[in-house]
């Protein structure tokens, strides 16, 4: 097809996390194009620009300066042009309340940031493949909920 790679965005204020994330995708067999953003404002500016190529899946850190993950999530879900993007929350928090709240607000995936790199690779590969199935196999995205 015209796009043989999967477009991925990550918004995370932690530089190490952004680097790990990119490295993990570099080591996977899957063809991906990863763009990263340092905070929620930067991310939303990019998404709201009408020429931007929208990601197939967007990873959102919850704790970010200027605009946090939940604020981005709510904004995206209210926006007709953006609300079809699959959203993965990527956070260190494992509070059940937090997790459920993000799902109710429209997140598709909740990832607890793993502490080691091998695990990160495994998780990201799993997320991207299953997301691709939703994207290409006519599965109902409203029912796409996953926790890792």
């Amino acid at each position, binding site marked *: *097809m015209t796009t043989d790679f999967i477009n991925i965005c990550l918004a995370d204020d932690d530089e190490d996390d952004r680097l790990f994330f990119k490295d993990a995708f570099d080591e996977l*067999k*899957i063809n991906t194009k990863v763009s990263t953003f340092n905070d929620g404002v930067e991310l939303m500016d990019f998404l709201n620009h009408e020429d931007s190529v929208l990601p197939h899946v967007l990873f959102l850190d919850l704790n970010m300066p200027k605009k946090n993950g939940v604020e981005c999530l709510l904004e995206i879900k209210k926006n007709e042009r953006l609300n079809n993007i699959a959203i993965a929350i990527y956070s260190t928090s494992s509070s059940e309340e937090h997790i*459920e709240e993000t*799902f*109710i*607000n*429209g997140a598709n995936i*909740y990832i607890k940031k793993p502490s080691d790199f091998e695990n990160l690779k495994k998780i990201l*590969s799993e997320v*991207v*493949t*299953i997301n*691709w*199935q939703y994207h*290409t*196999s*006519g*599965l*109902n995205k*409203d*029912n796409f*909920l*996953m*926790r*890792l």
Partner: protein
Amino acid sequence: MKVYLKFDYTQLTKKIVEEKLSELGYKYNSIGFGEFNFLEKVPSKKIEEITGIFREYGIEIVENQKSVLVQKIKDAIVEMVNSDIPLNIKSSVFIAEKLNLSYAYLSNVFSEVTYTSIENFIIIQKIELAKQLMINTPLNLTEISIQLNYSSVAHLSTQFKHTTGMTPSAFQRIISKRRELSHKNNT
């Protein structure tokens, strides 16, 4: 009043494609399995136009041969999972016979193109169907497990948890809260 809708996606897609192609005045044969044969040469500019129209419906024109084969495998799996007939033949046999190719070959092509296995795809499809039944029908989990040919409700629960990372009841709770929320926002 609340009503539940059940879709036959294959039928739905076929109907849309046929209507659109006729509307645009193309002559074609429908071969089945998502294969359409144009009876006259279509310039690539026109193909682009058709691609654009289809995209609105989430229908894509598949270009290369391997992708075509993968699509056929997926269609066979969807048909298998959604059929009401209890499966007493193995899925590998069903798929190989349906496509008339060896399972080993199909399995290789599938993994190469999709980065996932046929077995995994079948599980995803079954869990998807379980979700739909959970949300849109009054069936309980035991009844759903019987309909989907699981050996027990525990087996379905375990596979659900393994695939989605959450229990069926957590899934149901989230979806119903989401619905409440969107209901509130719309009133």
